[in-house]
């Protein structure tokens, strides 16, 4: 009798001790290290100063998602871009203000009518296999990108790259495309990497057989489901301009980078705290307190995407514009954002179609009053006018992204307050990507959209993307937008596009979200633009 009481007490003490252990760490307030508030442009850092940090050593990065392939032409995966762009480079790239800057191309000229762009390439750039890069490689890579990538097919239909001579590649567009350079400069998923012509010719639908690029790091090894190992490319020819965003000088300040795939977020954090990882990318929001209270750890915030409500405009209640405007009027965006991102510093209330860090280039006052109206009365009235009769609507999302899921749960609650009956269906990612293509399966999707270099690339602009935007007014605007002779003229159409956005309501924008990355104090120089930037990063350990 007594013994089993001893056992019971022991068990309770063991549990209590472990809970106390966790609590003790979070109770230390310590200094609030480096959690930079997004709105103050911290995500757009000024050009990195040249730190005097020593070079050498390694970076061990705990990364949650393993990319399907490192071949960027084939996949839109952001994980593939973040890892792969250390190995591959593009003709042009973006600086911290999203202006187009040279990378593998030294300069470019657009013809008067906007249908031809002539790129003059840098001389003496070598691929990791020693071959010198010429216009033949550029033409082969870019033509493949045009044919199989999403952006290529959407914006560059019928366009062709030709090698005029060894140092000159000419892009001939079927019609003037104002946004061409901005899209070519994009460094996120599906970016237009330049690879050797031979590898392009031998590629199959799953991707190129070898990863050979021109970047500051070269591909060493991929142990499936374990890690990807990149090593410094000793013969890399960096640009001379100061580093700014993705542009300018790229230097490999460490000898090895390891992307270690850690699907479990608590393992990521534990590994960072114990010193086994140098960087933990995209940690879960719950772990932030534990990380911030540790003086050896820095926490950084970077934009992750826009949380949007996608309407099924092909079938069902929301084929009616009034119903969509009703939802837009009725929701309280802030509560949904808090549910999704847990703290104010991890989200931005932003009425623009593009993200808060793109406001310098793409912003408009139009629609501000229609954003986050939080007016349930107006919503109920509009729903009545739209003919809502108490049917149950289906909300669909995926559990694999915590911001989408938590946002969807909060949204469902708000719908209830508007008198709308709803059912929330949650699936894993592959199931979700399949079911969302079926107009019979949902009324509203809760999705985070990755930011794009220019507005016409946003997913909800496409007729074939779930939601099925079909607006003649938009079609006209897009023709004007894309057909403008240059980017300046295109930007003036943006105002009208945003006006359309708030009238037609293809999606309801909830807000902009941030993700959190964390690193050891010894890691210096890490910045972000469409993914973590790992060149110019040193590890003093």
């Amino acid at each position: 009798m007594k013994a089993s009481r001893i056992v019971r007490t022991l068990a309770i003490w063991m549990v209590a001790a472990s809970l106390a252990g966790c609590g003790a760490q979070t109770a230390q307030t310590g200094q609030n290290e480096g959690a930079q508030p997004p709105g103050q442009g911290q995500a757009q850092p000024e050009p990195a100063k040249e730190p005097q940090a020593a070079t050498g050593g390694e970076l061990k990065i705990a990364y949650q998602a393993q990319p399907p392939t490192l071949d960027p032409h084939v996949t839109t995966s952001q994980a593939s871009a973040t890892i792969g762009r250390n190995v591959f480079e593009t003709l042009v790239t973006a600086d911290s203000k999203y202006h187009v800057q040279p990378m593998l191309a030294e300069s470019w000229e657009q013809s008067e009518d906007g249908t031809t762009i002539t790129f003059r390439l840098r001389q003496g750039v070598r691929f990791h296999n020693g071959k010198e890069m010429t216009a033949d490689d550029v033409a082969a890579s870019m033509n493949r990108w045009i044919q199989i990538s999403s952006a290529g097919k959407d914006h560059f239909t019928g366009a062709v790259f030709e090698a005029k001579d060894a140092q000159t590649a000419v892009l001939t567009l079927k019609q003037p495309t104002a946004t061409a350079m901005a899209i070519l400069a994009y460094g996120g998923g599906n970016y237009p990497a330049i690879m050797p012509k031979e590898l392009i010719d031998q590629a199959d639908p799953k991707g190129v057989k070898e990863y050979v690029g021109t970047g500051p790091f070269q591909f060493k090894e991929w142990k499936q489901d374990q890690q990807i190992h990149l090593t410094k490319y000793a013969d890399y020819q960096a640009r001379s301009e100061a580093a700014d965003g993705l542009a300018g000088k790229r230097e490999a300040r460490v000898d090895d980078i390891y992307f270690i795939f850690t699907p479990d977020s608590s393992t990521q954090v534990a590994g960072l705290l114990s010193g086994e990882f140098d960087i933990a990318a995209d940690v879960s929001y719950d772990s932030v307190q534990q990380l911030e209270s540790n003086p050896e750890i820095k926490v950084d915030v970077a934009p992750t995407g826009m949380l949007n409500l996608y309407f099924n405009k092909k079938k069902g209640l929301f084929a009616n514009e009034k119903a969509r405007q009703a939802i837009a009027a009725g929701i309280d965006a802030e509560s949904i954002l808090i549910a999704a991102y847990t703290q104010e510093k991890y989200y931005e209330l932003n009425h623009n179609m593009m993200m808060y860090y793109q406001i310098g280039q793409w912003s408009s006052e139009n629609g501000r009053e229609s954003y986050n109206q939080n007016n349930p009365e107006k919503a109920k009235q509009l729903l009545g006018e739209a003919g809502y009769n108490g049917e149950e609507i289906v909300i669909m999302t995926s559990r694999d992204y915590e911001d989408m899921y938590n946002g969807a749960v909060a949204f469902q609650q708000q719908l209830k307050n508007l008198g709308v009956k709803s059912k929330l269906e949650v699936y894993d990612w592959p199931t979700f990507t399949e079911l969302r293509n079926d107009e019979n399966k949902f009324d509203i999707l809760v999705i985070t959209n990755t930011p794009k270099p220019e507005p016409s690339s946003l997913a909800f602009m496409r007729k074939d993307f779930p939601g099925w935007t079909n607006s003649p007014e938009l079609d006209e605007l897009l023709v004007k937008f894309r057909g403008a002779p240059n980017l300046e003229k295109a930007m003036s159409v943006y105002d009208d596009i945003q006006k359309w956005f708030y009238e037609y309501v293809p999606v309801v924008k909830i807000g902009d979200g941030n993700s959190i990355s964390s690193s050891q104090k010894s890691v210096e120089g890490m910045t972000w633009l469409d993914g973590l930037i790992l060149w110019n990063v040193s590890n003093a350990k």
Partner: protein
Amino acid sequence: MNLYLVKRILALIPVLFVVSVVIFLIIHITPGDPASVILGESATAQDVEALRQQLGLDLPIYQQYMNWITDVLRGDLGESYFMKESVSEAIFSHLQPTLSLAILAQIIALLIAIPLGITAALRRGTAADQTVMGFSLLGMAIPSFLLALFLILLVGVKLQWLPVAGYKPLEAGLWNHLKYLILPAVSLGAIQSALITRMTRSSMLEVLNMNYMKAARSKGVKDRQLIYKHALRNAFLPILTVIGQTFGGLVTGAVVTETIFNIPGIGQLIINSVERRDYEVIQGVVLFVTCVYVFINLIVDILYGVIDPRVRLERK
């Protein structure tokens, strides 16, 4: 004996056939396929459909099954959609970590369970017995991930005695290999030991009460010999069954433990492949796992014959 072995192995074939049909149907009927995973978040339905055709996923399901099963019968398990290797290579390379982990966990489990079980049986009804049973209950109740996370926090982060996660193969040195496996093996082994402890205790209790035990003691056989040679050996058969079953589970991959500790074993292979809908790998691994279970059962049966002469004679 040989005929017995051959009969058992032949019985494997209908089992594998049924399993192959079931797993093929289940994963092909489930929504989602490798094409959409390969193409990423922003791919359109058109692109996915095009890739699906290129990969042969739009053929009627029975045709896809026939293509696959005829290859399997020739020994070709297929090729992964994601990893640049064949399914057989993938299984083989992921097997070593799981095997090491399983063996280490099983050793730890036995080292804990058998002495504890014997002690509990010998001191039945006392405080020692109650304590052992209490721990056994705790072990069966605690979810494996809780113990794993607790160990990581204590040993990995606070004390920093052992690495938090990861894996190094045997080629990197024995200690290097083992130090990554200790925490996961302890968290798995401690939980396995709970059931084995109970089994050992009850089996021993049964045997200790037998008449031949009293006879042996009155003949003057020493205590140690009594316990190990006479009692344990007779009690061992049910314990062996439990060990066989739990080992089967360990080898086929402790999915949660492997995920938390980042061990690239069979468990992680199957979970990742399901998430990515890597059909060929999932099917191959399930067939492999079926064979493993059947073989382990076969070995346990043979060991019965080795340990207990009565079984051997019965078979003749």
